[in-house]
């Protein structure tokens, strides 16, 4: 078996000092294999956002190791983290975070702007962005601005943007949180499709029926992993159902 994509050992994250100390993460161990589709669930304040930020290399843990794609990224400098985000991570946000007044194509081209590995020419960048939009079914809407697109379409642009640098990991933070149920289904179908074709996806959600799509549900509470797996007794799933 190949090496896991994500290996977290004894990860803690402490905010504040002295008496006001908050342990957002209190010793988390977690492994994600390549090709997995993992949902992270938990209440607000459970630590799932902190975990997601560290997984996304937007933040560094206070202690513990984070081996990502064979490299310990827990102690990297800010510039090195920026490079990891650019090369190895694709972000999908709840609120899409597209730049208004830029076309879908220009939005998808953004990650290539910051690609230090290869200097991508304008034509290549456009081609790759167009191909990426094609892949999410927006080949006809390359030059639409975000406000000319529905919520579901905007999130598809965001997915195209996440894919454009071919990252090994897709991080989705409540990807359907701002969408109606029909668009949610659409987006989940795309994520399923990506997963089937080998993508590794880690998704934060608080909706059990969305979490059901993932092959594995990690339940976080009080900065610790409460359960990990897809058994019927998963507290995060049960609680919602009850």
């Amino acid at each position, binding site marked *: 078996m190949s090496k896991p994509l994500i290996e977290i050992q004894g990860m803690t994250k402490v905010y504040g000092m002295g008496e006001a100390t908050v342990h957002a993460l209190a010793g988390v161990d977690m492994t994600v294999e390549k090709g997995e589709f993992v949902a992270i669930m938990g209440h607000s304040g459970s630590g799932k956002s902190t975990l997601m930020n560290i997984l996304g290399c937007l*933040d560094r843990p206070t202690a513990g190791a984070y081996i990502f794609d064979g490299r310990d990224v827990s102690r990297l400098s800010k510039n090195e983290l*920026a490079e990891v985000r650019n090369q190895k991570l694709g*972000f999908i946000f709840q609120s899409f975070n597209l730049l208004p007044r830029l076309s879908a194509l220009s939005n998808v081209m953004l990650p290539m702007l910051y690609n230090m590995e290869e200097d991508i020419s304008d034509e290549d960048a456009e081609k790759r962005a167009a191909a990426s939009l094609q892949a999410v079914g927006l080949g006809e809407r390359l030059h639409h601005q975000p406000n000319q697109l529905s919520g579901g379409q905007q999130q598809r642009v965001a997915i195209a943007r996440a894919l454009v640098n071919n990252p090994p990991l897709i991080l989705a933070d409540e990807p359907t949180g701002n969408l109606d149920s029909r668009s949610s289904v659409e987006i989940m179908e795309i994520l399923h499709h990506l997963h089937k074709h080998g993508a590794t996806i880690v998704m934060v959600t608080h909706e059990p029926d969305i979490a059901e799509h993932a092959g594995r549900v990690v339940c976080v509470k009080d900065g610790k992993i409460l359960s990990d797996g897809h058994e019927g007794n998963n507290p995060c799933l049960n609680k919602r159902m009850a």
Partner: protein
Amino acid sequence: MKFKKVLRTAWEGLMLNKVRSFLTTLGVIIGVASVIVMLSVSAGTEAAIAEQINALGANLIIVSPMRGVPGAGRTMMIADAYAIEEQVVGIDGISAEQGPAPQIVKGNGITLESIAVIGTTADFPNVRDYAVASGAYFTADEDERKAKVVVLGAGIAKDLFGDTSPLGQTITVGTVKLTVIGVMEAKGMVSDVDYDGRVYLPINIVFQKFMSEMPIGGDRVRTIYVKADSQENIPSVITQITALLSERHDVSPSQPDFTVQTQQDIIATQEATTAAFRDLLAWVAGVSLLVGGIGIMNIMLVSVTERTREIGLRQALGARASDVLLQFLLEAVILSLAGGLVGVGMGVGGSYLFGMFGGMQTAIVPGSIPLAFGAAAVIGIFFGYYPATQAAKLDPIEALRRE
């Protein structure tokens, strides 16, 4: 991230808000334009002054009674002029001048009120580089024997006789009948003096007919113009005149009752005045550039706040702090350089308009364009840096959370 790409990103950022970007540059536009206009106006003024002073005559040394010294106005006599002419080495001629009160001039049935009468010695046209257009100037002999002759300024000749020749005609200046023997060339206004609107008489007739009733005597002179025979001899001539007049007036050369000036001295005085004026204008222009810079900083700070999420997103997508810094710094620099460019255009155009319609002589100072442009660039960097650092030090997690 390649510089070219950051540049394009910055440009796109500005183009998203064209009206605001334009308004932001207004301060710099006005500042740069005023720097150029003001420098060109003051350069034009200086050029005009220099031209006028040179029109007084080349290599000219001006000897006049010291102003503000009691009695000094009484001491400079026509004899002093003759003494200079005879004894000073290195001169090409002298012209003593005296002007009584303005007189009524009548001729050809026309009466002109309040005309300036100037008594001069015979060498006046040579010394003052002011030629006779028709007829001749009076000779030293005519001056000495108080011949009743007059040379008209071009304007007076035209006013009295129109297009017919005034030569040989008789006119009355005050109560004195004089024969017109010459007309001067048109010279126009020089240092506020209308040379064409005066009549020129032998100085001795002026002493006799116009000054004799004055209590302080009739052979004092207002100014002695001395023409040096070369530029190099001017210092020596000045020294000789100072020594000669000090001796004649029985005063110490260090505390004379007269002044000896060259055109350069007068130009220097005038330039000191315009330099003070120009410095003031430079301050005004500098302040408006400063205000323009503060305007840019202001808008850039607003822009950073408004675009916090954008910054967070760019960071999430892999932008490093330096990429963000450069993007916002370049936005500020583009704004100020664009302002500088438009300002240079408006300044140059404004200078031409001032010159054409503003009744002012203007001369665009070539150095002012790179100066103003450079100032705009420095302002963009200086005032853009702080907002850019604010953008660069944003935490991506916080920035993405911001509404």
